[in-house]
C-alpha cells in the first residue's frame, strides 16, 4: 500500500442516509417490452459500449430493442490490424520497419525494444476502445481481461501479450469452453501462472488452482472443490511450455504426468485417465469436460457478468430470478456466450428502473467514454499513426492513474471493484481518484491535452450542434443531460444550468437563442463564437463535475 492509498483508504465514511435497505427488484429475464427511447438506449449503450454517443443513440433509437441487441452482440467485427512499430523515431527496431507490425517479429532480449513493443500494444488496445464500433466486443475484451487476468509487467515477450490480447478478442463472444482451453495454453498465461514450469517431477499448482478458483468454478456458496482437486488438476496440466519462436506453446510428453488423476466427490470422483505421448494433451479436454459439467461454472460466470454489467449486489431474488436462469441459458447453449448476453440485455431486469444509473463508471469507461460521447478528435490512425499512438498512450495513462491500468490488473483476481465485498464498484472512487477524474474532465473541457502535436480537447459547440435543438436553452440542457447522465436531476439543477450558465444569470431564454443564432449565422465571427463557447464550456464542466456524472 502506498502512502496515498494509506491515507485515503479509510476516508470514505458511511453516508448519513441509510442505504442498507435500498429498493431492489424481483424482475427477471422476461424480455423487456416497455418504452424504447433515449433513456433506454443510453442505458444499454453505456453499459455495453464505452459511452453512448449521440450518433449511436440516434442510430439505435430508429431500431427495435431486438435489432439493437442483435447488432451489439452478433455483428461480425473484423479483426483489427495489429499494433505497429510506432517507436522508430526514438529507438529503431532491428527487425521491424516503422509502421509495420512487430507481433510476429523475433523477441529482442536486449535493450528497450520489448518494452516499446509492449507500450505499443497497450496504446493500440486503448485505441481500439476509443474507436470501437457498435459492438459489445471491446467491453467484453475488458471483461475477459479482468477474468482471465495476466499482468503485462510480468510477461515477456510482447508477442505473447499480443497473442493473449488477440485471444481475448477472438473469443470474447465465442464459446467459453474453447476459450478456457485456449487460455490455458496461451503463452502469456503459461508464463503468468507458471504453467510453463509445471512438470511431472515438480508440479506447480498455480494454474490448476486459479483455473478452478478464478476462471471456472469460482468461490460461490456451492463451490466445494478440494485442495486435492487442485493437485490433481495441476498434474493434468503438466508438460506445457511457452514457445519463444512461435509465440505459441509446446507440449512435452516426457514432462507430463501420465498417472490417472482422481478428483473429489464434488466432481463425482471423476478420474481423468493418464495418457502418454502426444495424447497427454487430450487430458486437458477431459479436465475441462469435468469442470464445465458443474453447474457452478455457469452460475459463477453469470454472477461476474452481472457485477460487471448490471450491479454488484446480488440478492436472493436476483440470484434466483436472474443468475440461475441465465446460467441455464449458458449451459443449454453449450457455453456459447452470445445467448447469455442477449438474454441479460433484453430482460426486464436489465431495464428495470431500479437497475439504472447504479454502476460507478470504471476509469476506462470514464475516460474513454468521455472522449467518445463528446466525439473528441484524435490523430488519424492511418495517416498519422505515430501521433495517434501517442494520444492513445496518453489515454492509457489517464485511466491507469485513476487506478485501472489496462493490461495490468493488480493481481490474478482482477480489479477489486469486481470482487471485493462490500464496496465493489465504490472502490474506484476515493480521495485520490475522484479529484483526478474531475481534473481530467475539467482539462478536457478547458484547454485539453496536447499529445503528439495534436490537441485532445472537447469541442462543446460541435457536441451541442449534434443535439436536436441547441438554440433552445431548455432543450439544450435536457438533451445534454440525456446523453451525459443516467440519473435524473431536479428541475432546479436544470434551471440552474440554464439560467446561471447559458443565460449568464439572465431570465430571458431568447438571450441564449440569439447568441446561438448569431454564432450559427456567422461561425467565423470569433466574438460570437466565444460567447457561445465559454457558456457551453462552463455548463459541461459543471455537468461533469457533479457526482451524477460518475454513474452509468
Amino acid at each position: 500500500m502506498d502512502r496515498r492509498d494509506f491515507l485515503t483508504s479509510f476516508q470514505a465514511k458511511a453516508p448519513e442516509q441509510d442505504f442498507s435497505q435500498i429498493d431492489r427488484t424481483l424482475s427477471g429475464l422476461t424480455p423487456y417490452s416497455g418504452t424504447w427511447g433515449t433513456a433506454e438506449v443510453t442505458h444499454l449503450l453505456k453499459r455495453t459500449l464505452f459511452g453512448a454517443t449521440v450518433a449511436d443513440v440516434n442510430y439505435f433509437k430508429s431500431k427495435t430493442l431486438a435489432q439493437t441487441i442483435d447488432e451489439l452482440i452478433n455483428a461480425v467485427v473484423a479483426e483489427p490490424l495489429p499494433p505497429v512499430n510506432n517507436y522508430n523515431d526514438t529507438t529503431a527496431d532491428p527487425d521491424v520497419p516503422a509502421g509495420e507490425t512487430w507481433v510476429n517479429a523475433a523477441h529482442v532480449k536486449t535493450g528497450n525494444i520489448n518494452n516499446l513493443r509492449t507500450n505499443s500494444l497497450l496504446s493500440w488496445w486503448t485505441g481500439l476502445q476509443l474507436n470501437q464500433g457498435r459492438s459489445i466486443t471491446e467491453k467484453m475484451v475488458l471483461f475477459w481481461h479482468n477474468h482471465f487476468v495476466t499482468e503485462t509487467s510480468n510477461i515477456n515477450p510482447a508477442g505473447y501479450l499480443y497473442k493473449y490480447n488477440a485471444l481475448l478478442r477472438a473469443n470474447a463472444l465465442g464459446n467459453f469452453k474453447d476459450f478456457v482451453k485456449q487460455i490455458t495454453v496461451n503463452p502469456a498465461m503459461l508464463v503468468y501462472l507458471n504453467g510453463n514450469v509445471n512438470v511431472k517431477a515438480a508440479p506447480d499448482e498455480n494454474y490448476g488452482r486459479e483455473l478452478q478458483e478464478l476462471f471456472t468454478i469460482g468461490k460461490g456458496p456451492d463451490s466445494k472443490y478440494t485442495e486435492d482437486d487442485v493437485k490433481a488438476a495441476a498434474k493434468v496440466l503438466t508438460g506445457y511450455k511457452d514457445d519463444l519462436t512461435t509465440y505459441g506453446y509446446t507440449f512435452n510428453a516426457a514432462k507430463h504426468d501420465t498417472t490417472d488423476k482422481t478428483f473429489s466427490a464434488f466432481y463425482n470422483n471423476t478420474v481423468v485417465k493418464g495418457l502418454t505421448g502426444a495424447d497427454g494433451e487430450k487430458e486437458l479436454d477431459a479436465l475441462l469436460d469435468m469442470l464445465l459439467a458443474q453447474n457452478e461454472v455457469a452460475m459463477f460466470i453469470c454472477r461476474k457478468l452481472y457485477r460487471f454489467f448490471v450491479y454488484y449486489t446480488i440478492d436472493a431474488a436476483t440470484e434466483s430470478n436472474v443468475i440461475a436462469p441465465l446460467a441455464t441459458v449458458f449451459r443449454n447453449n453449450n457455453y456459447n456466450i452470445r445467448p447469455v448476453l442477449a438474454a441479460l440485455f433484453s430482460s426486464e431486469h436489465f431495464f428495470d428502473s431500479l437497475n439504472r444509473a447504479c454502476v460507478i463508471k470504471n476509469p476506462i469507461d470514464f475516460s474513454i467514454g468521455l472522449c467518445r460521447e463528446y466525439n473528441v478528435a484524435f490523430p488519424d490512425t492511418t495517416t498519422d499513426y505515430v501521433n495517434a499512438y501517442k494520444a492513445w498512450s496518453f489515454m492509457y495513462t489517464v485511466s491507469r492513474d485513476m487506478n485501472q491500468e489496462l493490461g495490468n490488473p493488480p493481481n490474478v483476481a482482477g480489479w477489486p471493484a469486481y470482487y471485493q465485498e462490500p464496496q465493489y464498484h465504490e472502490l474506484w472512487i476515493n480521495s485520490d481518484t475522484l479529484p483526478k477524474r474531475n481534473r481530467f474532465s475539467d482539462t478536457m473541457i478547458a484547454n485539453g491535452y496536447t499529445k503528439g502535436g495534436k490537441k485532445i480537447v472537447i469541442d462543446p459547440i460541435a457536441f451541442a450542434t449534434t443535439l436536436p435543438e441547441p438554440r433552445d436553452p431548455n432543450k439544450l440542457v435536457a438533451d445534454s443531460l440525456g446523453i451525459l447522465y443516467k440519473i435524473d436531476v431536479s428541475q432546479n439543477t436544470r434551471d440552474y444550468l440554464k439560467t446561471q450558465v447559458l443565460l449568464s444569470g439572465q431570465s430571458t431564454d431568447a438571450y441564449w437563442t440569439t447568441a446561438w443564432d448569431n454564432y450559427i449565422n456567422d461561425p467565423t465571427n470569433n466574438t460570437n463564437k466565444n460567447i457561445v463557447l465559454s457558456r457551453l464550456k462552463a455548463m459541461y464542466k459543471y455537468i461533469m463535475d457533479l457526482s451524477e456524472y460518475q454513474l452509468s
Partner: protein
Amino acid sequence: MVVMPSLINGFSFKAYGSLPLLNAIANSQNSDHVLVLIQLNGGNDGLNTVIPLDQYAAYTNARSNIAIAEKSVLKLNGVDKTGIHPAMTGIQQKFNDGKIKIVQSVGYPKPSFSHFRATDIWLSAADSTETLDSGWMGRYLDYEYPNYPTGYPNSQMPDPLAIQIGSILSLGLQGPDVNMGMSITDPTNFYNLINGIQDPAPNTAAGKELTFIRTVAKQTNAYAASITDAANKIKTQSPAYPAAGTNSLADQLKIVARLIAGGLKTKVYMVNLGGFDNHDNQVDPANTSIGVHATLLGKVSEAVTAFMEDLKFLSISDRVLGMTFSEFGRRIKSNSSVGTDHGAAAPMFLFGDHVIPGVLGDNPALPANANVNDNIPMQYDFRSIYGSILEEWFCVKSADVSNVLLKNYQSLPLVNADACVPTSIHEQNVRAGETLITNYPNPFVESTTIQFETAGEHTLLQIFDTMGKLVRTLTDKAYASGIYTLEFDATGLGTGTYYARLQNGLFQQVRTMIKVQ
C-alpha cells in the same frame, strides 16, 4: 488548514496536514487583503442609481417616465451635484461615514451592448475589439501564485485562492491555464457543505452510489475542511442582515464575511445579484421611487450595508475592499415601456475602511434632448479601476500591473496608500506550491530519507509529532544552495504521523510522514 482528523490503528492523523501552529509561526504578517467583487447581472441603470442633480432638467427630460423625483433623491454629505437612488439609504449612510467611493461613468471604448460579450469584456478586461480567454482576477492570482494548482494547498496558501458564491466558473477567475477559483454553489461542493442543498438521492442502488460519491467528494476536496472549519468558527454574525432567503446578495455576503472571519486566506470572493435587465416596468409608474429597479438597488444597499456592519462586528473590516460592477449601464433616454435599454458607461461603488471616500469624476454630461441612441460616454476605463485596486490594495508593482491587465492603465486614487504589505509576501507566494521537502519511503517502518532544497544560508530541519512536540532537530546550520538528504531514524518512536519542518529564510514547508509497523 485542511485537517481531517480521523483514527486509524489508534493514532490520529491529519490528511494534507501541516501543523496549524507551524503555519502560525510562518505567516504572522498581514498578507491577507481581501477583494469582494459584486457583479450586478443584467446591466444596471447607472443614471437612476447615481443621479446628476446638477442636470436634473435634462435627466427628467430624457426619462420622464422613470425619473426619480428630485426631492426623493438621497443626498450625499459634501456632494451637491450628485445624489443616489432613494432605495439606497444604507449606502447613503456608509458614504456619509466615509466608507464609500463612487466612481462615475466607468466604461471602455466601443462598448458592446450584448450581455454576454459585455460581461466577458468586464471579466476578462479585454478591449472590445479583442477576445481574452482568461480573467483579470485569474491573471492576478496566477501572477501571485504561479505554481497553482500544483502543490496546493500548502502552508503558504492553505485555502482557495478565490471563492465564487452564487455562480460557476466565472471567466473573471480563469487563469492562463486553470480556473483559479472555487465555486461554492456546486451541489457536491462547499456551498452545500455549508447549506446542505443538493438533489435528494433516491433510495435505490443509484441513490446509494450517488451518495457515496458525494461523500467522498466532500471529504476529499482539498479545501472542504478548511472552508467548513472557517465557517464553523464563526457562530455569531451581525444582526444587520435581512432574513435569510429575502436578499440573495446579503445571503452570499454573509457567507463571505463568515469565511473571512473564520480565517481563510482567500484573496478574492465573487458574488452576484441578477435581474438588472429592466427593459420594461423598471419603476412603478405611479411612484418612480419604487418598483423592480428600486427593489434591486435596495437589496444591494441593504446587503452591502449589512456586510460592512458585519465586517466591523467581526473585526475584519480593515481587511476587506468591495467593488460593484455590471456589464453595462443603460441608455440615457428611457423607452416607452417604462424601462431602459442596453447602454454604456455606468458608476461603480467601492467600499471598505481603506477607500478614499467621495465621488470620483463628474456627473455625465446629458444632452438637453436625448435621443434613443444616446449613451453615457466613459470617463474612466474600467481597467484603470482594476489596475488601481491591484496596485493600491494588493500592492502589485505598477510594472506588474500592466502585465496582469496586458496594457497600461491610468492609476486612480481609490485606496489609501498605507494599505500595502511588504513585497516579501509576494516573493513567498510566488514560490508556494513548490515541493522543497519530501521523504521516501513513506509510510516508513524504521527510518526514512528526507530530501530538502535550500536556497542557501541558514537551514533548519525539525521533526514534530502530532502533539506539536519537537522530536528531533536534523540540521540547524548554514548551507550552500542545493538539494540535500538527511536520514530520519525513528527507531524507538511510536507509529503514527510525524511532521518534518523545513525552515530556510522566508520559506518554511512541512512534510507529513507516517511511521507504520
